[in-house]
C-alpha cells in the first residue's frame, strides 16, 4: 500500500452520497429538539452540535470520514437468493426491499470497504440502520463473511460498525442462521490472528448483539447507544416494572462489563487507529490529514506505514471528508 495506489484509486465511492443534500436545510435533533443547520450537523458527523446526541450516520458518510482522505474501495458482497421464503406480510418482501433501496440509495443494509486509516490498511463493515432497520438477513451475513475473508486475504484488521433492530424477519430461519454464519466469520479472523473491533452504534439489538456484535476483541460503543438482546419494551412487558434510567445504554453496559469503551464519534477515528496499530504491532500513527503527495517523491519513496511520517504538518486533527 503506497501513496500512489491510494491516490489514484477511484474516489467515486466517497464523493457521492445520494442523501447528502436534502431539500430541507434544517435537521431537528431528536434528543434535545434543537433546530440544526443540516450542513453543520453533517460536518459534525451527525452529532448534535447542541447536546452531543449521536444521530444515525450512513455507512458511506462514516467511511468518508473514517478512511484517510475519504478514500476507500468497496468490497463486493455475493448476492444471496432474493426473497428466499417468498415472504409476504401486509406487503411483499421484494416491495419492501425496493422501497428501502429507493429511500436510501443503497443496495442493502451493510457496506463493506477497504482502505487505510492513519495509513493502516483495514477492512471496515458498517450496518445501515436506515435500510430496513439495518436488519440482518442473508446479505448482511454474506457481507460480514466477505469482510472477514478480505481481511484475512489482506492480513488486515476488521472494524465493524453495528446498527440493527435485529434479524430480518422476512427471511425467517435464514436470518436466524446468520448468527452462526457470522460467528464463523469471527472465527476466521481469530484463526488468522487478526484484530476484530466492534463499534456498537445506536441501536444494536436482538440477534445482531447476540452474535458478531458481542464477539469482538474490543468493544467500543458510541455514547448513549441502545445495546441489548431483548428490547426495553419487551422486558417491561415481561417483568411488569419500569426499567431504570439509562438501562441498556452504552454507559450502562460499560458499567456492567460488556464494553471496553464508550467513545465520542469525533474521537473514534483516532482511537481506532491507535488500537489497530498497537494490535498489529505497528509504530505510532501519523496524525492529521495527509498532504497531497508529490507524485515523483511518492514514486521514488513509497511511504512505509510503520514509520511515522514527518511530512504531516497538522497536529492531531480529524481527517474530514470534503
Amino acid at each position, binding site marked *: 500500500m503506497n501513496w500512489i495506489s491510494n491516490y489514484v484509486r477511484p474516489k467515486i465511492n466517497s464523493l457521492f452520497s445520494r442523501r447528502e443534500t436534502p431539500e430541507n436545510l434544517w435537521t431537528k435533533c431528536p434528543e434535545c429538539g434543537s433546530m440544526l443547520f443540516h450542513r453543520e450537523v453533517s460536518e459534525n458527523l451527525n452529532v448534535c452540535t447542541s447536546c452531543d446526541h449521536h444521530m444515525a450516520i450512513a455507512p458511506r458518510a462514516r467511511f468518508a470520514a473514517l478512511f484517510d482522505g475519504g478514500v476507500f474501495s468497496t468490497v463486493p458482497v455475493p448476492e444471496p437468493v432474493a426473497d428466499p*421464503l417468498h415472504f409476504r406480510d401486509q406487503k411483499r418482501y421484494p416491495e419492501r426491499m425496493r422501497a428501502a433501496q429507493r429511500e436510501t440509495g443503497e443496495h442493502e443494509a451493510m457496506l463493506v470497504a477497504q482502505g487505510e486509516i492513519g495509513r493502516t490498511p483495514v477492512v471496515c463493515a458498517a450496518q445501515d440502520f436506515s435500510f430496513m432497520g439495518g436488519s440482518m438477513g442473508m446479505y448482511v451475513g454474506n457481507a460480514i463473511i466477505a469482510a472477514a475473508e478480505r481481511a484475512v486475504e489482506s492480513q488486515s484488521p476488521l472494524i465493524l460498525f453495528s446498527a440493527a433492530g435485529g434479524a430480518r424477519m422476512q427471511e*425467517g430461519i435464514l436470518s436466524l442462521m446468520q448468527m452462526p454464519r457470522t460467528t464463523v466469520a469471527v472465527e476466521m479472523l481469530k484463526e488468522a490472528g487478526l484484530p476484530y473491533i466492534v463499534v456498537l452504534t445506536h441501536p444494536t439489538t436482538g440477534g445482531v448483539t447476540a452474535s458478531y456484535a458481542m464477539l469482538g476483541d474490543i468493544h467500543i460503543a458510541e455514547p448513549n447507544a441502545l445495546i441489548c438482546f431483548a428490547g426495553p419494551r419487551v422486558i417491561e412487558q415481561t417483568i411488569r416494572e419500569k426499567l431504570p434510567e439509562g438501562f441498556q445504554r452504552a454507559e450502562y453496559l460499560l458499567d456492567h462489563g460488556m464494553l471496553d469503551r464508550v467513545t465520542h464519534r469525533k474521537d473514534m477515528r483516532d482511537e481506532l487507529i491507535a488500537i489497530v496499530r498497537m494490535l498489529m504491532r505497528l509504530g505510532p500513527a501519523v496524525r492529521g490529514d495527509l498532504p497531497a503527495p508529490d507524485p515523483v517523491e511518492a514514486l521514488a519513496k513509497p511511504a512505509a506505514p510503520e514509520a511515522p511520517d514527518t511530512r504531516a504538518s497538522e497536529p492531531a486533527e480529524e481527517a474530514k471528508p470534503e
Partner: protein
Amino acid sequence: MTHYLEFEKPLAEIEGKAEELRALARTNEEMDVEGEAAALDKKAAAMLADLYKGLTPWRKCQVARHPDRPHCKHYIEALFTEYTPLAGDRNFADDHAVMGGLARFGDRAVMVIGHEKGNDTRTRIERNFGMARPEGYRKAIRLMDLADRFGLPVVTLVDTPGAYPGKGAEERGQSEAIARSTQKCLQLGVPLVSIIIGEGGSGGAVAFATANRVAMLEHSVYSVISPEGCASILWKDAEKMREAAEALRLTAQDLSKLGVIDRIVPEPLGGAHRAPAVVIENVRKALDGLLSDLSEKDRETLIKERRSKFLSMGAQGLAA
C-alpha cells in the same frame, strides 16, 4: 386428563363422549355401551388422523408447545443411563432452565445439554418455562468445553420459547452469553448433534443448535421469532399469528426444504404427547444414526464441516 388444543375441540367432544359412556357403563352393569363407544373411538381415530395429516404451521406451534409434550427431562431419563447432572456456570448461578451432564447413550459416554420447560406450575416456574438466562448458556459453554477436552460427543435437546427477556439477564450479558455459546458450538472438535424436540426459539435455540447435524421432531418448530411477535411487528396485530406462522416457514418440513435441518424424526399420530414411548424410541434411533455418522471423523474435519455447513446454508433458498 388430556389437554386438548383449540383445533382439537371436535375431537375432544367425541373422545369425551366415548369416555362418558364407558364411565356410565362402569356404574350401571346393565348398560352395554361398548358398541357405541367403539364407534365413537373409530370416529375419533379418523378425525385425529385427519387433523394431523396436514397440520398448519400455527397448529404445529401449538403442538410443539403442548403442555404434555415430552420435555428434555423425559428424553434424558429414557434415552441415557448413568445420567450425572452437572450444575452451575462457576460465575453466578445454576440456571434451571438448562439441564445437562454426563450420560451414557448405549455404550457411548456423551455430554447431554438441553432446555427444560417443566411440567406443572411448580416446575415450570423453577425452570423459568425453558427460558434460559446468561448463566444457562454459560453452563452449556462450560459443559461443551469439558466434553471437547475429554473427547465426548455433545447432544443438545432444544426446547425453548427463547432466551429470557429480563432485567438481570440483560445486565449480566444475555447477548454475549448466547454469542459465546454459538461460538463454542463452532469450536468443538467433537461431534455435536442437536435435536429440536419442541420449540426452537430464536437465538436461545441457535446457541445450542449450531451443530454438525440438526434433527427436528415432526411437529416441532424452529424460528427467528414467535408467530405472535412477528405478527405484532409486521402485521401490527398479534392476532395475525396464523399468517405469520405460515410466512415464517418454521415447520420441520419447510426447514428441511431450506436445507437448515438434516433429518425429521417422526412423531406418533396426534403428536409426541399421545405416545411418548414411541417418540422416544424414534429419537433414540435418529440419535444413534446421527452420532454413528460422525464417530469416525477427526477434530479438524468436524470443525471444518460444521463451519462449511453453516457458511453454505441458505444459498439455494427454498430450492435447496
